């Protein structure tokens, strides 16, 4: 098992960071500072270096500081002695470039999965309360990191979907063209469906195991893959929906409608779970993601924990850190507003921690004194 670690980070004109750089020595990095100082942006910068896309900003260009022409990120990563320098350049009027050790990737997708990462943020509550898109993102996000074919199939599926939807909006709709788009969607979609299905057989079990550990309670958690393809084959599905598609001018069936069903004691989590249970489940979904990526890639992903205490009580945070550090973990980078609180909570865990304080876009390293 390899352990991935970030040892140095440099951000230029990235969101509110005009020019910030810092070393990260430990395997547990605690970044503290007041609200609005840019803690979350540091985690997002790391995420961008790993996944080539922002987790926080919907519009990718928003990662470039206002009024600036470009952003540049540099990260030094280390795994079992191997060092890699990753550079991301993103001009406002151009496309993103990622370089590994000075060599440019011809396709960004070749980079995905090289630096596995799992991020937990306060917004993740949308996984439980929001629409299916959020849950599909979690699914795709995990599978894309562990399976390159999945990524390729998914982008091809999405491309054909876009073409089909535009075609449905045109004046003349030729059934033959729809037939072709359908067959392409089936070709790519079938592979995505199979991989998602396979993924759930592991994932469901991992989630309920971890939930039991975190909550120490006896609720029965069930995570299932919800797809129109579970009951009908693709071709029948498209045939049946064609009239509807023509009227609504978009593709109403397919794997882009898939969802994840979350049940607690056979009832939808949304309606029966208490606040505490929701939090535990949320963490279980993410830690299970961490476990699966770890097992499949044989690399322990970076863990980014944003504003943890915002949603969790100390007890749960301590438990979470314990759970993550128990196994094979590479590095955890977490943020919070209150350093005393962090110190007290994780004090019991015997890992050397790095303490970084952020103020007005400047990061300073400090030794935490126990007095």
């Amino acid at each position, binding site marked *: 098992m390899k352990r991935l670690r970030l040892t140095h980070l440099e951000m230029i004109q990235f969101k509110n960071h005009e020019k910030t750089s810092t070393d990260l020595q430990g395997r547990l990095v605690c970044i503290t500072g007041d609200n609005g100082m840019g803690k979350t942006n540091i985690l997002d910068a790391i995420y961008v270096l790993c996944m080539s896309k922002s987790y926080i900003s919907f519009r990718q260009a928003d990662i470039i500081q206002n009024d600036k022409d470009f952003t540049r990120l540099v990260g030094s990563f280390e795994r079992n002695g191997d060092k890699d320098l990753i550079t991301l350049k993103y001009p406002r009027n151009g496309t993103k470039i990622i370089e590994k050790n000075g060599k440019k990737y011809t396709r960004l997708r070749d980079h995905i999965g090289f630096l596995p990462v799992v991020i937990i943020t306060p917004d993740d509550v949308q996984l439980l309360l929001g629409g299916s898109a959020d849950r599909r993102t979690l699914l795709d996000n995990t599978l894309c990191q562990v399976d390159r074919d999945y990524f390729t199939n998914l982008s091809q599926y999405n491309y054909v979907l876009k073409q*089909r939807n535009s*075609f449905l909006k045109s004046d003349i709709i*030729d059934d*033959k*063209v729809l037939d072709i788009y359908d*067959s*392409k969607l089936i070709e790519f979609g079938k592979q995505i469906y199979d991989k998602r299905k396979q993924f759930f057989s592991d994932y469901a079990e991992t989630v309920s195991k971890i939930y039991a550990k975190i909550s120490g309670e006896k609720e029965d958690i069930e995570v299932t893959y919800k797809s129109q393809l579970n009951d009908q084959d693709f071709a029948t599905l498209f045939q049946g929906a064609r009239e509807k598609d023509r009227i609504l001018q978009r593709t109403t069936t397919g794997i882009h409608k898939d969802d994840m069903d979350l049940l607690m004691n056979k009832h939808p989590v949304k309606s029966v779970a208490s606040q505490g249970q929701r939090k535990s489940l949320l963490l279980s979904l993410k830690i299970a993601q961490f476990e699966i990526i770890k097992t499949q890639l044989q690399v322990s992903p970076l863990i980014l924990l944003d504003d943890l205490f915002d949603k969790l009580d100390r007890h749960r945070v301590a438990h979470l850190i314990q759970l993550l550090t128990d196994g094979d973990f590479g590095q955890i980078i977490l943020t919070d507003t209150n350093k005393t609180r962090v110190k007290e909570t994780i004090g019991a865990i015997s890992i050397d921690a790095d303490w970084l304080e952020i103020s007005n876009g400047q990061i300073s390293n400090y030794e935490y004194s126990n007095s």
Partner: protein
Amino acid sequence: MQHSSLLVQETVNNFTELPGIGPKSALRLVLYLLKSDPEYAKKLGSSIIELRDKIKSCKICHNISDDEVCSICNDSRREEHVLCVVENLRDLMAIEDTRQFRGRYHILGGVISPIEGVGPEELHIDSLLERIERNGVQEIIMAISPTIDGDTTIFYISKLLEGKEITISTIARGVSFGGALEYTDEITLGRSIISRIPYNS
């Protein structure tokens, strides 16, 4: 850039509309024209005017042509029963340059891409079908870029030809000549393995 002569200014502006020409190159060209024999400028100007006025699109294959029918379609030595279907003029020229093809062409004028506003009716597909019907074409070679949209177009045309006595082939896709296997991307290499060809020495 501001020039002392409005005439120079205007010509420079016109040149910069050409692809690959920036203001500096444009100025260089304009100054060259001023320095060179006035006859040259006249010749250049009139050839451009003549080009735009007289150029035609071949009514058979949609290639550019001086006459109603282009020189390729008019060449009786070229095989009439084999058609190479291409996206655009540049692809036709690229295949012509190989000197490996002695049949005739058909230019589609693009590939099906609803996002770009191109549906089947925007392409020269009707005239292709008509040609196949009229001339007893036996084989069509789809020399179309191996993209999703290219595939869609090939698939569409092949559906229209279903049930007809005609061979449809696509150009081979695989490892480039003189290329090293280790640098070939995995999709191409994977396809090359699947669609391998019998070896004959």
